[in-house]
């Protein structure tokens, strides 16, 4: 059997086994407890009845996640550039960047709502805060990790500072940047969800998946709650898939991490 086929069959088999165990557990529960674990069928049913709401909420969350994510990429790249230029700037800002990462979003959310207003704006800011740190740390690391000999070579050829940054340091930092991007891509939908859960409730029509989750749990619509979780998973997969694709486009021709090992 070819390796490729095996790579498809094995995860599929795991999935089937998982669903079988799921059904087994569900039907071994006594009838009055079965609501605790809806069956996959019931969850698909929940998609049918709540599909429009879920799709609407998913779009809102995706919008917040995307805006926060892109904003974090832009600002973190600029900050990383500033940090890479001077070790003094690095030393003076690093502790506060750490602190930014430590901010507990749940506690901060009520104030944030007062500052920027509920709904999308708060969701974007919270996503931004969650994505920012891994991006800025990795990109900065990349920008300062350029091969010293090549930097000397550039200096010897009298490269200007912008030439050194854009022709040498920035491309050399790409693998690090994409490492940060992958981490941030997994965080962005979660960040948007948490943001929505804490700050989306008073947004009315602009509520996202977090807000839907609050409604479904208050109405004891557990299958719909599971469906909400599934939608969030899909959203996360889309983010990661896009980043993995971009990373492949940027790096596969030259970076060792994409080296084919079969030749």
């Amino acid at each position: 059997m070819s390796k490729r086929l095996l790579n498809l069959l094995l995860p599929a088999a795991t999935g089937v086994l998982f669903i079988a165990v799921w059904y087994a557990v569900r039907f071994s529960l006594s009838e009055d407890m079965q609501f605790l674990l809806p069956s996959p069928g019931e969850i698909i049913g929940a998609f049918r009845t709540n599909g429009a709401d879920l799709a609407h909420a998913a779009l809102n969350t995706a919008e917040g996640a995307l805006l926060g994510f892109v904003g974090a990429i832009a600002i973190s790249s600029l900050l990383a550039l500033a940090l890479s230029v001077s070790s003094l700037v690095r030393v003076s800002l690093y502790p506060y960047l750490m602190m930014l990462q430590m901010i507990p979003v749940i506690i901060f959310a009520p104030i944030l709502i007062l500052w920027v207003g509920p709904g999308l704006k708060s969701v974007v800011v919270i996503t931004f805060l969650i994505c920012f740190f891994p991006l800025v740390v990795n990109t900065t690391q990349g920008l300062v990790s350029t091969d010293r000999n090549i930097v000397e070579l550039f200096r010897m050829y009298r490269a200007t500072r912008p030439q050194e940054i854009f022709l040498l340091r920035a491309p050399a930092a790409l693998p690090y940047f994409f490492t940060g991007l992958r981490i941030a891509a997994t965080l962005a939908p979660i960040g948007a969800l948490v943001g929505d859960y804490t700050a989306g409730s008073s947004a009315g029509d602009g509520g996202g998946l977090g807000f839907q989750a609050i409604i479904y749990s208050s109405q004891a619509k557990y299958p719909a709650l599971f469906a909400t979780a599934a939608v969030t998973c899909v959203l996360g997969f889309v983010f990661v898939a896009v980043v993995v694709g971009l990373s492949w486009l940027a790096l596969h021709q030259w970076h060792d991490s994409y080296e084919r090992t079969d030749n």
Partner: protein
Amino acid sequence: MFRAPMAATPLVDLHDLTKRYGEGSVVLDRINLAAAPGDFISLIGPSGCGKSTLLRLIAGLSPLTGGSLLIDGRTPEEAAAELAFVFQEPTLLPWLTAAQNVGVPLKLRGVPADQRLATCARVLELVRLADRAHAHPRQLSGGQKMRVSIARALSLSPKLLLLDEPFGALDEMTREHLNEELLAIREAQAWTAFFVTHSVAEAVFLSSRILVMSANPGRVHTEIAVPFAYPRTAATRLSREYHDLVTEVSRLLRSVETADT
């Protein structure tokens, strides 16, 4: 001072060149040397004799502590356009193709793309890599990467080529081939070379002059003139005189090294 009218003015002129790191030990102690255009000078000696440091000083990568250093009558900074450096590692940019790597110095100097392309093609031809122009560094062998690195150094038609153990990491066969190629290129493009190496055979094969250096502090111990006429080929290595000279320089180098310990 009287100078013979026909004598070429030195391309590189070192006078009492001294290098110290901070208040610490003296790395290079009063080096005097004049390199005429067309010289191929090898620097050989025990580790710590400062041969790589000397190369870096000439390249302007590191400031001198004392004495003077003139290239073509100017400081290394002013003469930057005349010199090129080849590191021990190929130091290629992995995201660029071989041709693009060769074009980096031209690009930094603002040469337009079409001229750059023409020069890159010509120089890659010179190092016999025209067919690999569009390969990325990871697709090239160690010897091929080094060829690209040399091609990049030659792209600006330098007067002075500084090579810091460029073939040190390559196997014997590849090294000998590249030695021959380097001399063949030199026939076509008359540059002057400073070449740091650990290999006596390589130094004798390539050089017109060999400077044997001693360590602590770094000094020029002996200079040896290599009498074999250029162009030299693989056949040069088979001659009796070549072997005798390799033996002589090896013996000298060993005496310098044992004196040091």
